[in-house]
C-alpha cells in the first residue's frame, strides 16, 4: 500500500466507530461503545448517549446520529437461506443494489456472523435471457453456509437480526479512508474526540452556559432520538447537527426547542456508497472545531 501519515487518536476513533453495525432502532452496540468512550455520559429514555457539561441556563446542543440505514433478517427459509427487509426510514434502491454479490455481517447476541448475498454465476447466464429489473432487497438471498433453518438458528440468527454490508475500512491516497457511512462515523468520532476534551471546555465555559453532547438513535426514522432530546433536555439556544441527516431548517420548524440549528459536517467523496471517503486530517480539523464550539470559544 502507499505510505500513510502518522496515526492520531481520532484515526483510531474513526476506525472503531466505522466498524460497528448500528442499524436504525438496533444501535445497542454503538450506544454501549460510546458510553464506554465517554465517562460521565448517560443513556436517556430514547437510548441516546448524552453528556452534559456545565449547568448554566444558556444551553447549547451538539448531536451526531449513531444509526445507519440497513436491513434486518426478514425470514429464515427452511433450506437455510435468509431473506431481508429494510430497516425503517429511507433506503434508496442504489443502496439495495450494493448488496448483490457482497459479504454481509449479521449481528447476533453471540457476535457477528458472516454471510454473502447470492449472485448469479456469470457462466450460467450465457445464452440465457438477461435479468430484468434492478437488484433490490427483495432479490437478496443471504447464504451463511447453513443448509437448514435449524443450522441458521444455531448460529444465533433470528428474525430481526441486523444485517449490513461487511464493515471493511480502506485507506488510500493521502490519508483518505473509505467505508460505509464513513462521513457520519467520522463526524461522530470527531465529536467523541472533542467531548473528551471536557476539562478544557469546562475551563472556558462561562457559568451561564451548558453544553449537551449527544449521539442520537433512530435518526433515519424521523429523527426520533433528536426529537426526544428536544423534548426532554431542551430548550436550547443553539443546536449543531454533525454527521448529516436532514436540514437545520426542518429541525427548527419541527422542534422549536432546538433553537437555531446549524449543520456541520465533513466534505467527502462517494457518499452513500461502500467507499464513502473522507480525509483523516479533515476529521482532526472537525474535532478541533467542535472542541472550540463546545468550549464556547467559537
Amino acid at each position, binding site marked *: 500500500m502507499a505510505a500513510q501519515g502518522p496515526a492520531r487518536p481520532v484515526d483510531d476513533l474513526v476506525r472503531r466507530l466505522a466498524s460497528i453495525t448500528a442499524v436504525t432502532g438496533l444501535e445497542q452496540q454503538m450506544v454501549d461503545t460510546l458510553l464506554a468512550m465517554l465517562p460521565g455520559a448517560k443513556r436517556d429514555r430514547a437510548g441516546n448517549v448524552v453528556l452534559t457539561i456545565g449547568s448554566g441556563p444558556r444551553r447549547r446542543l451538539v448531536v451526531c446520529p449513531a444509526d445507519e440505514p440497513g436491513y434486518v433478517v426478514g425470514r429464515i427459509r427452511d433450506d437455510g437461506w435468509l431473506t431481508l427487509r429494510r430497516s425503517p426510514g429511507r433506503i434508496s434502491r442504489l443502496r439495495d443494489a450494493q448488496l448483490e454479490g457482497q459479504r454481509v455481517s449479521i449481528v447476533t447476541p453471540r457476535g457477528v456472523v*458472516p454471510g454473502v448475498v447470492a449472485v448469479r*454465476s*456469470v*457462466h450460467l447466464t450465457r445464452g440465457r435471457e438477461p435479468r430484468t429489473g434492478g437488484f433490490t432487497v427483495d432479490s437478496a438471498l443471504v447464504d451463511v453456509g447453513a443448509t437448514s433453518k435449524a443450522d441458521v438458528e444455531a448460529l444465533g440468527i433470528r428474525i430481526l437480526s441486523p444485517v449490513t454490508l461487511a464493515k471493511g475500512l480502506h485507506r*488510500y491516497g493521502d490519508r483518505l479512508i473509505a467505508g460505509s457511512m464513513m462521513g457520519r462515523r467520522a463526524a461522530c468520532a470527531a465529536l467523541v474526540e472533542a467531548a473528551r476534551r471536557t476539562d478544557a471546555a469546562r475551563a472556558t465555559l462561562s457559568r451561564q452556559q451548558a453544553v449537551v453532547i449527544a449521539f442520537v438513535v433512530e435518526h433515519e426514522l424521523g429523527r426520533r432520538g433528536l426529537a426526544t432530546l428536544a423534548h426532554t433536555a431542551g430548550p436550547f439556544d443553539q443546536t449543531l447537527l454533525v454527521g448529516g441527516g436532514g436540514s437545520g431548517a426542518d429541525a427548527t420548524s419541527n422542534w422549536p426547542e432546538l433553537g437555531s440549528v446549524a449543520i456541520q459536517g465533513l466534505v467527502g467523496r462517494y457518499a452513500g456508497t461502500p*467507499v464513502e*471517503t473522507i480525509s483523516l486530517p479533515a476529521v482532526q480539523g472537525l474535532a478541533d472545531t467542535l472542541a472550540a464550539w463546545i468550549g464556547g470559544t467559537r
Partner: protein
Amino acid sequence: MRTILPLLVAMPLAAAAAQDPARMRETETVLESLVESYGVSGMEAPVREAVRRLLPAWAKSQVDTAGNLWVTVGKGEPTVVFVAHLDEVGFEVTAIGEDGLLTVESRGGIFPRLWAGRPALVHRRGRPPVAGVFLPYDSAAASTGPTDSLPMRVDLGAAGRRHAEALGVSLGSTVTSPKEYVRLAGTRATGRSFDDRVGSAAQVMALRRMDPAKLDHTVIFLWSVREEIGLEGAAAAARALGLRVTRVHAIDTFVSADSPLEPQNFAVAPLGAGPVARALDNSSVTPPALLDSLVALAAARSLPLQVGTTNGGNDGSAFEQFGVPDVPIGWPLRYAHSPVEVADLRDVAHLAELVQAVAEGW
C-alpha cells in the same frame, strides 16, 4: 452416443478422511494461503510462489517461458497431466486520465457492477499494491441501462496523471479488490478466486500425500497461467508436450447452479456432495468410457463423485488438438467469478484425494 444425465451422485456418502479435523485444517490452511495471494491473468507470480512454498520438499518445480509451474513425478508411460490454473479474474488499466483517474477493463468474465463502489488494489511487479477505490456508478447512469456496460474507473487519490504514474501505475497494471478468506457456517467458506485456487490447492495436497517412488508412470502437475483469458498457459504446455500425453485432467471449478437464483435445468451439483466429473462444458466433452472409469475409480476408493454438465471452458481442452482426451474434474462452486464465491471444504479435501487416486491408480 451415450446420454449424459444432468447429474448423478455416484457416492453420496462422504469419505471419513475428509471429515478428519487435521485434514480439514490442512485444507483450510492451504486454501487460505492461495486465496489471499493475488494473480490477475498475466500477473500470476505471487500465486505461483505461494504454490511453490506449499509443495513438499521432494517436489522439484520448474517454470516454463509461458509462466506455467511444472512438477513432474514418476517415469515411464503413460503420461498423465493434471492442470489447475493460477490466475484469477480482475481488471487492467487501459488509460490514465489527466485527473489521475484510471480507466480499467475486465480480464476474464465478470459482472463489473459487483466491483463498482468497492475498494481497489492496483498491483505492481515486485512492490506492494497501490490502494484506491472503484468509482461507484452514479444513480443517474445506473438507471439508464445495464450497468455492466458502463466504464469502470479507479480513484487512487492521485492529484493527476503524473502523480498516478509516480506511484508505479502504468497501462496494463492489473487491478483487483482486497480479498479475504472467510469461514462460514459448517464446512463452508467464502472468498474471491476460489476459482481456481481450490484446484491449485487440491493438486498441492495430492502431491503431499504421494510417494513418487511408487509411481509406475509419469504424472505431470501443471499450474497454468492466463486460463481466464483464453487458456493461454495450458495451450503453451500442450504444444510443448505434443503427442506425449495420454490423458489430461483439468482440475477446475464446476460452476454450480446450487442456488435459488439459478435455473435448475443443469449444473445443479450440491455443495458438500463431493467433487464433480465435469462431463460436458463449453470446451470439451468427456469420452463416456473414461467418465465411466473415473466413476468406477471413485467408487472403489469410497470417494464421493458427482457427474454433471456446466458452462465455461477448461485448460484440458487445450490438449485435445493433440488427440489427448480431457477428463476434467471439478468441485461445486456457488457464485463463480464474484467477490463472494462459496465452496465446501469437504469437497476440496475429497478433490485432493481423488486427484491422488487418479494419479496413482488410473
